[in-house]
């Protein structure tokens, strides 16, 4: 479980986070939406322990990420996967070596087992045949998929996604979202997705939180955000085109139906 309590962070006097409270249940995925520069990625980096808060706490399974050091921090990070907005692949390594890297360094698997495992991961993200290429030889979508394969290679219990579809065409973006969905089905990780992909992202997540001026303005289910009467939330969801409100309501209804059908199917 991820719990953010009264989190404050400022940079050179600019208050980016001003008392953020957030909770993501175990095995659930939350979409974190909000305008650019309003602190979504900063919040995500606090959850990963890459930034220390000025005030407040980020608890990951009860551990305060701002205070963890050394071995304790490493053990939490061993259970965590992070998909960077830029991909953050090691540019001096091939795609195969990138995906194999955490397995080589953190497990005692043999070379053949690592090879098999990497090939499975690459197949799942549709990158078989590109394993010998280097990150600079790949398109943006392929880099994101390779990065996803690397993040998932360690079977993470917690996954953090920083704008996984930004800069991609709609079809590639949808492929990435489908991949996240299928990986979540398989691994049942707890996740946070920072995204602008509204309303597409609502098919993938269990909850949505909207950050505005350093605080959580809204937290609820995708259906609830689509039916929200809050002006800021409404205009963000419809992209400022209020005449889409009716469409959003229809979308909420159809999502409700899909979700119920999915629940029945799972039973």
């Amino acid at each position: 479980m991820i719990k953010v309590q009264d989190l404050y962070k400022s940079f050179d006097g600019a208050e980016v986070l001003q008392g953020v409270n957030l909770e993501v249940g175990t095995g659930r995925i939350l979409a974190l939406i909000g305008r650019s520069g309003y602190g979504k990625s900063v919040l995500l980096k606090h959850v990963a322990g890459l930034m220390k808060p000025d005030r407040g706490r980020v608890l990951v399974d009860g551990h305060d990420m701002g205070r963890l050091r050394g071995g304790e921090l490493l053990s939490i990070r061993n259970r965590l996967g992070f998909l960077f907005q830029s991909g953050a692949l090691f540019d001096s390594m091939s795609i195969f070596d990138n995906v194999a890297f955490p397995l080589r360094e953190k497990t005692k698997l043999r070379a053949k087992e690592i090879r098999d495992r990497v090939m499975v991961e690459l197949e799942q993200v549709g990158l078989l045949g590109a394993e010998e290429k280097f990150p600079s030889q790949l398109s943006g979508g392929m880099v994101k998929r390779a990065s996803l394969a690397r993040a998932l290679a360690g079977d993470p219990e917690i996954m953090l996604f920083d704008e996984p579809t930004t800069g991609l065409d709609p079809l590639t973006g949808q492929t990435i979202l489908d991949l996240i969905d299928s990986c979540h089905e398989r691994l049942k990780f707890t996740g946070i997705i920072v995204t602008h992909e509204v309303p597409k992202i609502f098919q993938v997540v269990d909850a949505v939180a909207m950050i505005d001026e350093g605080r959580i303005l809204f937290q609820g289910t995708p259906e609830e955000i689509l039916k929200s009467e809050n002006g800021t939330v409404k205009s963000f969801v419809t992209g400022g085109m209020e005449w889409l409100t009716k469409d959003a309501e229809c979308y909420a209804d159809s999502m409700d139906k899909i979700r119920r059908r999915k629940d029945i199917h799972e039973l």
Partner: protein
Amino acid sequence: MDFVRKLGESGIRSLLTLGRMGIFLAKTFAFSVTPPVKLSLFIKQIQFIGFQSISVIFLTGAFTGMVLGYQGFNTLSRFGSDAFLGPMVGLSLIKEMGPVISALMVTGRAGSSITAEIGIMRISEQIDALELMGLNPYRYLIVPRFLAALVCLPLLTAIFDVVGIFGGYLIGVKLLGLSSGVYFGEMVSYVEMKDILEGLIKSLNFGVIIAWVCCFKGYYAGFYTGFGAEGVSKATTQAVVLSSVLILVWDYFLTSTRIFM
């Protein structure tokens, strides 16, 4: 009042940077002497810092020795002491010019690219990715370069010295007509083991300075120098300038205090 505030701010910032540099060096030492050391990365850095620097060290060593041969011969012959060309070239190279010029050459060739490489990894979040995999960036990026610099600098200095001595020989003996026996004989008489050790200790010190400053500047690229490509380029420039200045200042300090001699 504004001036005083700015002065205070810059003073505090400098102190913080110094503190951060100190912690960085302490961590590097600590991780260097505790396992696991990434052997393959260490060997790769030996190849990069050491092997690939041999040609530039060879060239600079040869020409430094040749210039010393010329200037030394001209100066010494004024006092009728041209027989001492061998010790003059040998001592100058072994005690001072070998360690210092080798270190400056390695700073320019390898140090700059160490900063640029680590800096690019920093700004493209590759170091964050390492940390988030639960892996220690010091063990993967800093320690192999640090240890490789410690091993390579004395060896490169030794090559510089030998090549320089033969450069001096080429000019003094082959071109200006000094006897070969006098050149080497006097050198053997006057150059002692402690002189060679002095040069070795200096080159080890310079290895620490190069790895420390260049890795630090790359690791914190963006933090002090602004973000993006410009940040990395500024970090690289600062790394080369700071290591070069530190090498010369520390050389004076070591020579004048004879702290390790």
